[in-house]
């Protein structure tokens, strides 16, 4: 090979790749508004993004899988948590979720918290080509789930409680809760946790609709 052939490889390699890349970039950017439901990207969402940046959240948490690996990924967090829980958590993280690895209290103002929740809710709707993937074990169970199990997941119960070996260890293991507690006891615990344990960090789930509550109680009391 001669020097000029090497030069040709350099020039053509660069030009071809750059042309493909710029073409795809043009197409990607034109498709982004639809894929990221930009019509819902309000000023509040943008303010939330700036709050997210200003407190440097991204160097502990990943979002879209990018960032620090010290704390949970928040891309689809609003599928697991409801807005009230999120607001309470952001106000005083350790009180709501007394995990061993702590998130510092950032002393966020109320409007910063609502901006952040709006931002997370918007991020939750981004089309990420199905990332993060559904866990294989859970995916295999689809179709055989009880209605109460869906409530259990949606309310993020497993972030604190273990069930059949999976879940957090902040609250008690619920694998055999149905053989320890009556359905009525479970219902009262869900509606008013402090009535059983005055210092319990568990939030009340009295906000659930009667149907959701019945389903959840059925599901839990069936864990024998």
């Amino acid at each position: 090979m001669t020097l000029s052939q090497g030069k040709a490889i350099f020039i053509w390699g660069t030009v071809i790749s750059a042309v493909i890349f710029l073409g795809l970039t043009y197409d990607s950017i034109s498709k982004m508004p639809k894929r990221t439901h930009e019509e819902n990207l309000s000023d509040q969402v943008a303010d939330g993004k700036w709050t997210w940046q200003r407190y440097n959240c991204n160097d502990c948490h990943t979002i879209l899988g990018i960032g620090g690996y010290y704390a949970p990924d928040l891309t689809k967090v609003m599928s697991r948590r409801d807005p009230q829980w999120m607001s309470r958590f952001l106000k005083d993280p350790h009180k709501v979720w007394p995990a061993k690895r702590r998130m510092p209290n950032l002393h966020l103002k109320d409007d910063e918290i609502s901006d952040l929740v709006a931002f997370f809710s918007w991020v939750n709707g981004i089309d990420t080509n199905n990332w993060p993937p559904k866990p294989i074990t859970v995916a295999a169970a689809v179709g055989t789930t009880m209605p109460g199990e869906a409530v259990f997941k949606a309310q993020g119960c497993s972030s604190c409680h273990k069930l059949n070996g999976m879940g957090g260890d902040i609250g008690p293991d619920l694998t055999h809760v149905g053989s320890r507690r009556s359905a009525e006891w479970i219902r009262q615990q869900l509606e008013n946790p402090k009535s059983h344990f005055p210092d319990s960090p568990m939030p009340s789930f009295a906000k659930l609709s009667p149907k959701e509550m019945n389903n959840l109680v059925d599901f839990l009391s069936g864990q024998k």
Partner: protein
Amino acid sequence: MKYETQKIAYQYFVAATLLFGLQVIFGLITGAKYVWDYDPLMNIIPFNTSRAIHMNLLVIWLLIGFMGGTYYLVPEEAETDIYSPPLAVFQLYLFVGIGVAAIVGYLAGWSWGMPFLEQPTVLKFGIVIVALIFLFNIFMTMMKTRKWTVIQGVLLGGLVMLALLFLFGVFFVRNLSTQYYWWWWVIHLWVEGAWELVAGAIIAFILLKLTGVNRELVEKWLYVEVGLVLFTGIVGTGHHYYWIGTPSYWLWFGGIFSALEPLPILFMVIDTLRDVREKKIEITNRIALYWAVGSAAMHFLGAGVWGFAHTLPQINKWTHGTQVTASHGHFAFFGAYVMINLTMIYFAVPRMTGTSMKEHGRSLIALRLMVLSIFLMVLALGVAGVVQAYLQRVLGMDYLTTQGYMKLWYAVMWVSGWGVVTGVFTYIYDFFSMGRPSGVTA
């Protein structure tokens, strides 16, 4: 050393060396937070701050090293002195000043909040000014004699690309997906584009001088290497566009092009070894040679093999956002850029100070300690990442519970971190024992 103004590089190397030491100390602080749940520093240096400092120091010292390398290389290639030595010194002080301001700012909670680009906007404009001064000074030096060698051309191309791409990381974008789209133009196209050009030119220059092989041979293969780097690396950016809200065709483009990315690096390994085999002169500075060959091998392992391992979308779907990425990041940056900077330093400083490298066995101790410790560290992080991907992504365990199962591997990572720090401080001691060039006080 042929030109007096090449000595400017020494001050850059001193700054890079000291910041390297500080960087690995912040690595230990950051790593400890994974090992112990209780963090006594949580309200002074929380994880996000220590991570930002660890990463920023890395980028700053590598860039300062590259700039020093450039100030050393260009006079010899252009066969003239640096256009303005005072400007070069001013530029170094300005850059270090901005770096210090950024780090003090992070400790005070002043952040722009995009990973690696946490510098507040006003400091980013300062960085742009530093880059412009640097490019101006280098370009004017080259223009004095207009000897356009391929090494100079590739180097200048890499530096211009580096400066231009930084602009894509300066502005706030409302849409997070779009912000990340452009963010990768800085992060990916720097390390798998612009920096590869700069590093390729530097290593070509060193091999040329060390081995005395034919210039045309070195330059021909440099063209081919950087051509392949850019061909695979530019569209290879697509491996970061799988899951961030971008269209699904990136799974194909990113997957195919980035799967080819190890090829140019393998090429560099073969090229380096061929130059050494076909050497025309006796290699007197064997220390620099060890670092150069070590760098080529670790570059291939860390960036090439470790990158390939999780670049295909079918695998990346499970490993994205886990410690597998951290493992790859540490390995790739060490192999590709830390070792190239140290190669440059071990090549240039003895030529500036007149030190004989025969008595610098300490440098090889530093080399072995760093390489072995980094290898152990990335294995530990890699295992931690696989455990995480399996428990969290495959079994659906929640994030924090998963972390408990990774503790052992975090501990191995941290202990090997001490090995890295020991290696780095051995290097720092060795660096200063090489003496300083006459007439340089800093």
